[in-house]
């Protein structure tokens, strides 16, 4: 772990009247990380993003961007952030070039460097061909890309993307994901989404927020490990008694399903699959199916968000 994180959020809370949208959220983002922010609708994802980017003032808490306090020196801190809100903040009456030039100037890029910055941003987001077109006439996917180009034009240390792939077609989604992964090598990226596979594909670390609280925070490897199977589903033509299956070494518990199927529970990492197959062949049970069950990210997500138990572990 490096000593100075790009973004550090400490004990962040935000109330709307009596409603606590975000409660006591703390996390840090290191350089070269893509942090996935997951949560069901209304969990407080967008609120957190808005606070980090200075669009909302927190009720409590402290945020530093690259070591600069966002509340004490907002201008200096905001210069280090690029933000794509849920709805891209575009001026539809301008052309892509005009818009990006304005964004560059807005982010205090020197007049003589503006053209180079615009060209670079367009190149990274695949916008070279549409520079002279009106933003209003672009498709949703291209508008989204203009939104991302706007967020990276001043090469900020941190890029915050709020649901960047909503409303795009599958090919565009893949392109945007590639772009995000690419951004992660140079910038720190915070990505908010409710699409789970997106997190698996693009992020190096995952945080799950539910009802304003951070309930899970871990690396993507640990999350994948959590998804490892502890059950096998087997089906036989001549099903044996459940006791016979339970006697096989490594099987902890047997659940009988319909049509000669069984679910075998075992300890994590010690699959009894080879022994089950062997036994089935020698005893002539007529094995026709043997599948390890995968826990999907959805299941884990539901598990985590439906239990009150908070996992506050060191990230």
């Amino acid at each position, binding site marked *: 772990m490096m000593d100075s994180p790009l973004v550090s959020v400490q004990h962040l809370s935000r109330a709307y009247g009596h409603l606590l949208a975000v409660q006591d959220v703390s996390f840090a983002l290191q350089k070269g990380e893509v942090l996935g922010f997951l949560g069901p609708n209304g969990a407080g994802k967008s609120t957190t993003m808005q606070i980090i*980017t200075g669009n909302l003032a927190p009720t409590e808490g402290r945020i530093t961007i690259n070591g600069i306090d966002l509340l004490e020196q907002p201008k200096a801190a905001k210069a280090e952030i690029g933000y794509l809100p849920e*709805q891209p903040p575009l001026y539809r009456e301008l052309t892509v070039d005009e818009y990006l030039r304005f964004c560059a100037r807005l982010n205090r890029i020197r007049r003589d460097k503006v053209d180079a910055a615009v060209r670079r941003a367009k190149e990274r987001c695949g916008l070279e061909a549409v520079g002279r077109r009106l933003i209003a006439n672009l498709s949703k996917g291209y508008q989204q890309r203009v939104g991302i180009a706007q967020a990276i034009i001043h090469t900020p240390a941190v890029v915050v993307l709020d649901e960047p792939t909503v409303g795009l077609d599958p090919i565009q989604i893949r392109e945007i994901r590639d772009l995000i992964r690419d951004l992660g090598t140079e910038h720190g990226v915070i990505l908010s989404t409710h699409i789970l596979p997106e997190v698996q594909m693009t992020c190096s670390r995952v945080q799950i927020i539910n009802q304003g609280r951070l309930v899970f925070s871990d690396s993507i490897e640990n999350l994948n490990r959590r998804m490892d199977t502890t059950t096998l589903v087997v089906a036989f033509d001549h099903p044996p008694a459940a006791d016979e299956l339970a006697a096989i070494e490594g099987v902890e518990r047997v659940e009988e399903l319909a049509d000669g199927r069984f679910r075998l529970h075992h300890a994590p990492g010690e699959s009894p699959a080879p022994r089950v197959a062997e036994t089935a062949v020698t005893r002539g049970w007529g094995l026709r199916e043997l599948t390890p069950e995968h826990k999907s990210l959805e299941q884990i997500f539901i598990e985590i968000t439906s239990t009150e138990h908070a996992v506050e572990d060191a990230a």
Partner: protein
Amino acid sequence: MIGTLALRELRSLFLSPLAWSVLAVVQFILAYLFLAHVQDFIQIQPQLALMDNAPGATQLIVAPLYGSAGFIFMMVVPLMTMRLISEERRNRSIALLFSAPVSMSEIILGKYVGVVAFFLVLTALITLMPLSLLTAGTLDMGHFAAIVLGVLLLVSSFAALGLYLSSLTVQPTVAAVSSFGALLLLWIIDWAGDKVGNAEASGLLTYLSLLRHFEAFARGVFSTADVAYYLLFTTVFLVLGIRRLDADRLQH
């Protein structure tokens, strides 16, 4: 930074048909009035020639022309200022400004300068008409300058109020209606003053009236008290606008 924001505002204004139609309509109406005033002036000129110390073209043509311009601006400014902030809110494009390294004062001032620049253009176009009289006669340039300055101060205070009301709402039309209502009230507030009977109250209402301060300029009187009134008026509403944007981040 203010320049960047102002230029963007001006560009967006001129990319919309609204700015062009406002320029065209205002110019057309004022040109019509100008011709009517010139016509009147020509008709009464024989009588004026007999008078001592007769009023000149500046008093009889330029002053009423700019008086009408002020009144038309009162109706047009709300149309131009209504979108300034409310539409950015509605399109959510305001997030771009909020997350950029610019302060709220720069956002407000940038937008303000942008819209005032539009009215500078409009006023410049109107000013060309009286200037054309120079080909046939003379104008009292001091008086003329006072009138133009008066109109500019008037329109910039209108714009400040419109900008502030635009920052209060998400609906451009609500901003337009409320700006127009507020301006009209401030325009005619001294009418009630005459009927109050109480000299002090009547004086206060007269002081508040946007029109009364402009009348001094129209007579060719350059008074710092009137300039101060307009500057104060403008500053108050710009500061209120900045405070309003700041408050945006605190509550929703």
